[in-house]
């Protein structure tokens, strides 16, 4: 809103009474008023000052009002002109309006009439001002949006990680230069192509299909091996893009080149592998020779010697077990163990492992209490790895249990996951140790666990396997009551393979 004293009005009239009268009326209202007594003077003032409103008499000697109006309209289109017409000559008023006058006021006029007409003009000026401000404002915000967009694009384009954004059908709508470089696909633009058609990677395509199609899905991270030259390994993180209503509009996938880490990791795994084999063979040899004594094949031994040798053999078994776990870990970390994923019935896996562990459990008079949902989802997993997971969990539940205790195994469907709980009635784990139990070589040292032989590699192995299957493992424990491990593994999902999609297109 303009302040009153900002309004500057020019009154051009050859009649002094009207000039002075208008000045008096308008000045009283707080507006700034300048007067001119003929057309020439008026034009000169308009040229040298800034006016908002011009009160212009049409009938003047010299340059007439109509001529002044025309010239002013050309030079100062924003100036609002109110013409003063003698004796209500409506024709003049109409012509003036045609020439761009804003309003007219017939002579003679009352002070109120002048005030009303001028106020209306001022309202018009204010409205124009506001409209102009709004226009500037919206232009500025449009510019901000454009700037923001270009900033975001700049960031995406300069990221070292590859970025692919798809619509809800999996067609690529945005990419950055890094992904093209990473995949060595300079010759073919990804835009508009389906993610499978452009990358040729079924696993990636399935990841994206998952985040697009599974309700409530969040991000998925998976390591992808790229066979096509250049041979490479990528850590891909895919996430759905949603609107405010939570509907999935598309997906965004970030690619992290981990080839170098994989090579380093492979070297490490090869080393661990080699060392483990070199360690395991002599240990096996030692164990076997001790067994000759225990079986009485190299002469009779006393009961006490038998006991000692038994204990030695147990310790060697512990060492061999640790080496085996190390080997498994290095194989899984090298990506060798979890590659043979197939449809698995979790019930059969668990029942098989229980059968295997029953002799161990009997030694401590432990009971297995099993409850599994009848229609439990099947998994898409590596059988050997899953057996390793539950063998380790059950083995712990036996080792760290009290005599005559129980082991509870509970399996149920939970959303898109299968949840398996393994609980014991053992000594429990102190709160301070809980977060460390998945660390390699961490073992809890208490009076209760001192005699238990363990490698400190079982749980890290379990966690690595579960995470390689996109699952999670958590632990809860109460001192003197027991420990519960909660495993969640994604159910097997029937995602149309890229091949069937292509077949569908061909039909």
């Amino acid at each position: 809103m303009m302040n009153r004293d900002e309004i500057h009005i020019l009154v051009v009239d050859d009649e002094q009474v009207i000039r002075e009268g208008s000045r008096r009326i308008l000045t009283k209202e707080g507006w700034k008023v300048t007067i001119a007594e003929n057309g020439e003077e008026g034009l000169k003032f308009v040229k040298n000052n800034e006016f908002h409103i011009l009160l212009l008499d049409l009938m003047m000697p010299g340059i007439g009002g109509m001529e002044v109006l025309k010239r002013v309209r050309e030079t100062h289109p924003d100036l609002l002109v109110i013409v003063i017409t003698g004796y209500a000559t409506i024709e003049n008023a109409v012509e003036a309006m045609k020439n761009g006058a804003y309003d007219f006021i017939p002579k003679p006029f009352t002070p109120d009439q002048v005030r009303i007409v001028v106020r209306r003009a001022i309202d018009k000026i204010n409205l124009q001002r506001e409209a102009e401000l709004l226009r500037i404002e919206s232009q500025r915000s449009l510019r901000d949006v454009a700037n923001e967009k270009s900033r975001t694009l700049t960031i995406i384009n300069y990221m070292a990680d590859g970025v692919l954004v798809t619509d809800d059908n999996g067609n690529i709508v945005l990419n950055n230069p890094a992904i093209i470089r990473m995949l060595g696909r300079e010759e073919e633009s990804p835009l508009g192509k389906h993610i499978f058609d452009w990358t040729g990677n079924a696993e990636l395509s399935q990841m994206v299909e998952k985040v697009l199609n599974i309700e409530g899905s969040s991000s998925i991270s998976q390591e992808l091996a790229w066979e096509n030259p250049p041979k490479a390994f990528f850590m891909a993180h895919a996430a759905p893009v949603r609107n405010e209503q939570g509907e999935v509009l598309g997906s965004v996938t970030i690619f992290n080149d981990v080839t170098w880490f994989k090579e380093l990791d492979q070297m490490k795994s090869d080393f661990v592998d080699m060392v483990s084999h070199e360690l395991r063979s002599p240990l096996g040899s030692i164990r076997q020779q001790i067994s000759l004594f225990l079986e009485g094949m190299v002469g009779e031994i006393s009961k006490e010697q038998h006991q000692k040798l038994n204990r030695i053999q147990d310790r060697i078994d512990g060492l061999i077990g640790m080496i085996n776990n190390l080997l498994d870990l290095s194989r899984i970390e090298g990506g060798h163990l979890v590659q043979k994923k197939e449809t698995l019935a979790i019930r059969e896996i668990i029942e098989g492992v229980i059968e295997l562990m029953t002799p161990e459990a009997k030694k401590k008079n432990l009971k297995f209490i099993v409850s599994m949902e009848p229609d439990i989802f099947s998994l898409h997993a590596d059988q050997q790895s899953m057996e390793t997971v539950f063998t380790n969990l059950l083995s712990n539940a036996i080792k760290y249990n009290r005599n005559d205790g129980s082991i509870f195994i509970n399996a149920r469907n939970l959303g898109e996951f299968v949840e398996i709980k393994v609980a014991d009635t053992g000594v429990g784990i102190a709160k301070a140790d809980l977060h460390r139990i998945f660390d390699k070589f961490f073992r809890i040292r208490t009076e209760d666990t001192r005699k238990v032989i363990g490698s400190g590699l079982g749980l890290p192995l379990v966690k690595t396997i579960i995470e390689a299957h996109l699952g999670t493992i958590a632990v809860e424990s109460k001192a003197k009551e027991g420990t519960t491990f909660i495993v969640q593994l994604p159910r097997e999902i029937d995602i149309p393979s890229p091949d069937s999609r292509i077949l569908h297109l061909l039909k």
Partner: protein
Amino acid sequence: MARILVVDDDPDLVESVSVILENKKHEVITAYGGVEGLEKAKREKPDAMILDVMMPDKNGYDVCKELKADPGYQNIPILLLTAVASKISTTTYTHQMGMETEADDYIDKPVEPKELVRLVERLLGNN
């Protein structure tokens, strides 16, 4: 009583397996590598063979394959000495490796004397 060839690059292991077998009154022939094992198998034509998998000069799978491909020796029963990660994975392992090598049976290292005796007797058809 049978003549059994024991092949392993670890002399201690060869010896302890020999002790176990000799305890059961079997005659034991020994070899300390894949090449030597293959050669002795052909020369001595043992009643059965206990063959280590991991050997530096020629591994047990290859020795097994060669013997099983030769009509003159394919009837020698072979017990493979394997070093598998854990008990439960033996089934998977057998499945993957056994079909390829056509070995007659498998036993994990380190060997339990009773288990070894049981498997050898079965191999010889004496159970």
